[in-house]
């Protein structure tokens, strides 16, 4: 073992400290053994804090008819039946217990009249199902998990970015990372690794996602031998801010519509009547996003290219109480008082349904010892995620991944770590300092975002996707000559140069998968193939690494048991 590098050893290494990572770490700790959590940011700043609307769980506190079967059915229908049915079943069955557990760890949800956890309506959910705290549910969840984990005693490596996974033959053996503060490298040796790094939203220019969302977990798992699935399904949230330009893309929670918000075009028409008269504003996100996009494209958009979302018919005090961060966000950033007038909104890249392909029960990937949970994993949401199903996903599968990772660690010997892999990561990471006169990483990132936004966005067409693949190749060439200025100490330009590698890998996976899926389903809309295809409805796109090339094949969905089929057949 190379003693040139700071090295840490854990039974379970969790990469990512959002909801899924923290829940996995807590579960792994509960099973004994040592657990390390690596986080790109400070603890408690993860993207989970951005989740506003709530946690979907069929607790039936408000609508007593609700149960896991209805939640399962809503999730499958929302995902256009491309979901991994077993994940959807486990998720619907286990979510209520995961929410109660949070409450027992100190989370304080809004209450019903009779003293239970309050639940609100959300798009695609048959019943009022989202357990919430005003519009800051994610913050409540992350604080609760953070405090629980700190108290149980996990080791947290903050502001530490993973560069690659380490493998010992055909198993996962840990990771190589660098400290953002010093730029020094650090090696983690682990029997099990849980990937919980979230999504890829930073590859688009209009996005609700933070700088962290660069697809690292997916790209690194792919490089190490795991498979990716359903990468063509990128969710554009229907309501992001559109004006002023500085705030473009910032999320406007679906809770605005859940609380009764109405969408209108510039003529004052409640246009959802034309797109989904039954569910209106509470239709699924793919439908609402496409509807707003279409209104704007056909000339019925607002001055700044959006739609109007209005909640001002509700009493001002109610709005401030139930949507406090929205109230402040618009007041401070856009000079709009949402208690008296409408918000201007338009689609913003928000979430990726695709990700690392995992087994439903254990969350293990194809690479033994590598687990994945949360947004970085694929399967639960199929072709479109329902609002509120993300926070419950983090809890249900974070727990499962943590448990399975701890179990795996008990069963295997300590892996061997290969110095060659570490040194390769080191020399690759340092190359931009030795390259002079190359491209600036910010310029490459900017061009990638612009390209993905215009060619691989909400509506897609073959020629654009073909062009996107060509552009990606050119961006890869530019990245191989990227140069950075300054030292290794807390250098965001250098950090971005390293994140770019992941962004280009996941962008290629999205574009390739989108190109072959010749149909429109959920969040994937092809102008040249506007209909659902029965044939494509039976298949997932699988991406894997063939060395220097990206492999792509289709796999047929597994057969659903008769009782679940029966549930889906029921009209409701």
């Amino acid at each position, binding site marked *: 073992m190379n003693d040139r590098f700071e090295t840490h050893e854990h039974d379970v290494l969790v990469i990512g400290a959002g909801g899924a990572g923290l829940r996995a770490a807590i579960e792994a700790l509960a099973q004994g053994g040592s657990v390390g959590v690596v986080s790109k940011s400070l603890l408690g*700043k993860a993207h989970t804090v951005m989740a506003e609307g709530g946690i979907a769980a069929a607790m039936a506190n408000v609508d007593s008819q609700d149960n896991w079967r209805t939640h399962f059915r809503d999730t499958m229908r929302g995902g256009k039946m491309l979901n991994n049915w077993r994940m959807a079943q486990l998720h619907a069955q286990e979510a209520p217990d995961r929410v109660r557990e949070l409450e027992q*760890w100190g989370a304080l949800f*809004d209450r019903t009249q009779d003293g239970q956890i309050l639940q609100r309506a959300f798009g695609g959910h048959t019943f009022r199902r989202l357990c919430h*705290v005003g519009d*800051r549910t994610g913050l409540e969840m992350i604080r609760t998990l953070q405090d629980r984990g700190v108290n149980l005693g996990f080791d947290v490596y*903050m502001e530490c970015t993973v560069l690659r996974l380490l493998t010992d033959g055909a198993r996962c053996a840990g990771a190589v990372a660098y400290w953002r503060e010093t730029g020094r490298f650090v090696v983690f040796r682990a029997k099990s690794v849980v990937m919980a790094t979230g999504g890829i939203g930073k590859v688009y220019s209009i996005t609700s996602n933070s700088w962290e969302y660069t697809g690292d977990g997916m790209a690194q798992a792919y490089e190490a031998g795991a498979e990716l699935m359903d990468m063509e399904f990128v969710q554009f949230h229907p309501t992001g801010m559109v004006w002023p330009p500085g705030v473009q893309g910032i999320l406007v929670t679906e809770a605005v519509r859940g609380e009764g918000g109405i969408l209108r075009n510039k003529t004052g028409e409640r246009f959802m009547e034309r797109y989904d008269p039954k569910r209106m504003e509470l239709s699924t996100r793919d439908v609402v996003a496409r509807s707003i996009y279409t209104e704007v494209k056909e000339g019925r958009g607002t001055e700044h290219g959006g739609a109007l979302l209005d909640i001002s018919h509700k009493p001002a005090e109610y709005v401030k109480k139930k949507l406090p961060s929205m109230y*402040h966000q618009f007041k401070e950033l856009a000079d709009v008082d949402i208690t008296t007038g409408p918000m201007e909104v338009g689609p913003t890249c928000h979430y990726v349904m695709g990700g690392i392909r995992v087994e439903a029960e254990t969350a293990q990937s194809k690479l033994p010892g590598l687990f994945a949970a949360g947004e970085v994993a694929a399967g639960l949401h199929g072709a479109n995620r329902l609002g509120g199903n993300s926070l419950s996903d983090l809890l249900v599968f974070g727990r499962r991944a943590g448990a399975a990772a701890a179990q795996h660690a008990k069963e295997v010997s300590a892996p061997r770590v290969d110095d060659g892999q570490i040194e390769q990561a080191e020399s690759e990471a340092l190359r931009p300092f030795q390259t002079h006169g190359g491209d600036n990483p910010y310029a490459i990132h900017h061009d990638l975002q612009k390209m993905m936004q215009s060619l691989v966005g909400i509506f897609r067409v073959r020629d654009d996707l073909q062009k996107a693949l060509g552009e990606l190749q050119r961006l890869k060439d530019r990245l191989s000559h990227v140069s950075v200025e300054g030292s290794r*100490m807390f250098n965001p*330009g250098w950090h971005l140069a390293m994140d770019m590698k992941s962004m280009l890998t996941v962008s290629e996976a999205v574009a390739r998968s989108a190109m072959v899926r010749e149909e429109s389903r959920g969040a994937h809309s092809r102008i040249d193939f506007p209909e659902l295809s029965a044939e494509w409805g039976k298949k997932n796109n699988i991406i894997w690494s063939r060395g220097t090339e990206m492999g792509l094949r289709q796999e047929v969905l597994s057969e659903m048991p008769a009782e679940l089929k029966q549930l889906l057949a029921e009209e409701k």
Partner: protein
Amino acid sequence: MADATMQVFRGDRSGGQTVEYKVPMVPGMVVLDALHYIQGHLAPDLAVRWNCKAGKCGSCSAEVNGRPRLTCKTRMDALPLNEPIVVLPMQTFPVIKDLVTDVSWNYQVNKTIPPFQPKPGAEWKFYQEDVDRVQEFRKCIECFLCQNVCHVLRDHGEQPRFGGPRFFVRVAGLEMHPLDGVSRAKVLKEQLGIGLCNITKCCTEVCPEDIHITDNAIIPLKERVVDEYYDPLTWLVRKIRGAAEK
């Protein structure tokens, strides 16, 4: 629109100075946008912490024209643009590089706080009016601006024996949880040094979440400590009740 002139601190633990940058103004621009412009076009290695850019994560704290602010919520057009906008790191914490400071001390303090522990036999039923007050404390996004302006920390350097407003807010959130069964009076008095706070309300003024830190968290907690330690009757009752619960 015209350009804005920014003076941004560049340096590290060994020192530094402000450097001037010209940034083109865009409608609705916030200070964090200007810092991102500088990174993208003028100084790619400018160190800045940020995440959500929506006032929810509390990462981008700095001192803008001498005022502690979240840079993502500080509008450029609300600042006088005929003079340079000065952006400095939070002064109470040691600088790591540029606008990034070493806030690790806060995480150490957090570890000393006894966690939520439900009362034995607690029934998980409680009402909105029971949680309204506590939910205020749980809005905290840990931007540490209150820690930054607290003169006990900033001017007197009492970090070794004073927890600071952020952690009084956290303790208040635990102590006033309707089902919590632990008393943290001893920790408040001995480790967190709540007695050192002389309620100047500087923390409350800078809180981007509008938490009434002094009135709703610190003063009631001070009262709890007084009750526990200096009121003989309450002390006796608690002692007996505490023993009975065990």
